[in-house]
């Protein structure tokens, strides 16, 4: 009896400790976020006050109006241009990745051909090639193709990524063969089976891969910094750093810029957090 009460007490203490730790961690994660949001709605006078203010006393949208209406740099551009560039590049590339890698994943999962294993592991080795090694040769390739300062440089290279092939293959492998049999008997072509049977069945996998690809390309910083050099072509993350360099002393505007550029990814994340969490836990992919 004594042992039991002790065990229960210990278990409760354990739980209390776990909660205490998580709450502290949560505060550390949330506090900067709340501060950024607060400052983005503050007039500059309040921001300059010391000690730092968290809650805007007279909330204002001025900072947001400013970042969307100001003409950026010499080219008469606004933040909308970069927002549009980011959307355009990210969606185009994501669609391409989904098509190309799901087809390859289908071949590896569902079709038999000589050299399959060798090819799979050969392609898979590219997983281990670190990004820094590819930076310069890829840049030279873009120069050779005449793609420097064009969106082609951002849209096409991600289609070579092996993760999508691997991810889709795993999913296609798990689909029971009986489902394809009917289509084979009906005389459907290989492409017909893929397009009308397997792709619709793997909608959740396609969605997950799509979200991952979207986030990855949207957030990329180094590559667009290297291959784009005119203001009108830039994507949002790079544009933001360049633009905020000029507004560096106006903290409210800087913070509004940070909010505007993280809003799209945070919305995507909150809507699809379940799929994202599950995919990260299952594949070990999605970090940096």
């Amino acid at each position, binding site marked *: 009896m004594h042992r039991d009460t002790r065990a229960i007490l210990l278990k409760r203490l354990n739980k209390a400790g776990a909660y205490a730790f998580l709450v502290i961690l949560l505060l550390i*994660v949330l506090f900067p976020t709340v501060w950024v949001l607060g400052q983005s709605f503050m007039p500059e006078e309040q921001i300059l006050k010391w000690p730092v203010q968290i809650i805007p006393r007279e909330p204002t949208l001025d900072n947001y109006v400013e970042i969307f209406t100001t003409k950026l740099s010499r080219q008469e551009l606004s933040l909308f241009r970069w927002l549009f560039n980011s959307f355009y590049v990210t969606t185009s590339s994501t669609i391409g990745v989904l098509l190309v890698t799901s087809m390859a994943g289908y071949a590896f999962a*569902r079709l038999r051909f000589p050299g399959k294993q060798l090819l799979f592991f050969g392609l898979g080795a590219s997983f281990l090639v670190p990004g820094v090694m590819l930076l310069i040769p890829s840049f030279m390739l873009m120069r050779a193709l005449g793609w420097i300062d064009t969106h082609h440089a951002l849209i096409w290279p991600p289609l070579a990524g092996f993760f999508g092939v691997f991810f889709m293959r795993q999913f296609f492998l798990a689909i029971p063969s009986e489902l394809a049999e009917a289509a084979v008997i009906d005389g459907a072509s290989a492409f017909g089976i893929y397009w009308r049977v397997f792709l619709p069945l793997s909608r959740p996998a396609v969605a997950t891969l799509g979200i991952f690809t979207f986030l990855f390309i949207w957030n990329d910083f180094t590559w667009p910094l290297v291959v784009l050099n005119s203001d009108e072509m830039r994507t949002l993350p790079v544009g933001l750093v360049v633009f905020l360099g000029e507004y560096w002393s106006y903290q409210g505007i800087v913070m509004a810029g940070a909010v505007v550029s993280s809003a799209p990814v945070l919305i995507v994340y909150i809507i699809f957090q379940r799929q994202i969490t599950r995919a990260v836990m299952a594949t070990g992919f999605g970090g940096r």
Partner: protein
Amino acid sequence: MTSRFATADSDRISNWTLTNKRREALAGYLFLAPYLVFFLVFLAGPVISAFVTAFVEWELLRGTYRFIGLENFQLIMEDDLFWIALGNSLYFALMTTVGNVVVALCAALALKSIRLGHTLFRIAMYAPVVLSISVIGIIFSRLLAPFGLLNAGLELLGHKGFNYLADPNLVLPSLSLTTIWWGFGFPMLIFLAALYAVPETLYEAARIDGAGRRQILWQVTLPLIRPALLFIIVTQFIAHIQVFGQPYIMTNGGGPGYSSYTIVLHIYRNAFSYYHMGYAGAMALSLGVVMFVFALAQFRLLGRYTEY
């Protein structure tokens, strides 16, 4: 040989003939073809040219291109900045990897033991991972400024605070803390998955044998999630030694002085500010090959460990 790939759907169809086999193989290649084209152009090609570039003197501005053998590697040996940058990158990667693993492991253990609020905590802690480095860099260079949020907090505690990003001794730890804030949610999820995979019966057995909490952690939990630990340590180290955006955005590309100047900043500057493509390529190749070997060793080890 029955391979693990033997799942062909048409295999189950009765009138299986040689022509069908050939048609299936053809279909396989056709399905692969688009991906293969992109792979060859944008991955295989650059990997091969990375090996060539390292052995040439390639000055983009002057237009020189000639083979010089190992000269670029000799230059690396004599380049003080390369070694300073390498030291900084190693220091940063070590700090960030250890910090991330410790925070993520504690968070995962805590998350596993609670039910109420579990999802909320998990969602919030992974959220920073989806943000871009430019947002993180912008926010944290404000937060760590002399009159930023962190010093305001310290003042409440009666401390005058620090100049985090301008102090040569504090700048790398500050960038590291920023990076941990940004990224610990990812290893946390990996550890959480590994923890859920440990059979509950093992814990019960240990408890019946009279093992304490600490004993269970060190002798049951940690050995059983060793593959996940190893995977995270190696991939995190490889990712963080390539740190670039943080110092590029937050410390003006490596300041104060060269205190936060990293190896990828050095490669970037040599390639895209001075256009010493060959020399930068040689540095990138050296770093890349070392990391590739690291990653390969990890996968071999993982293969050995995962058979429990």
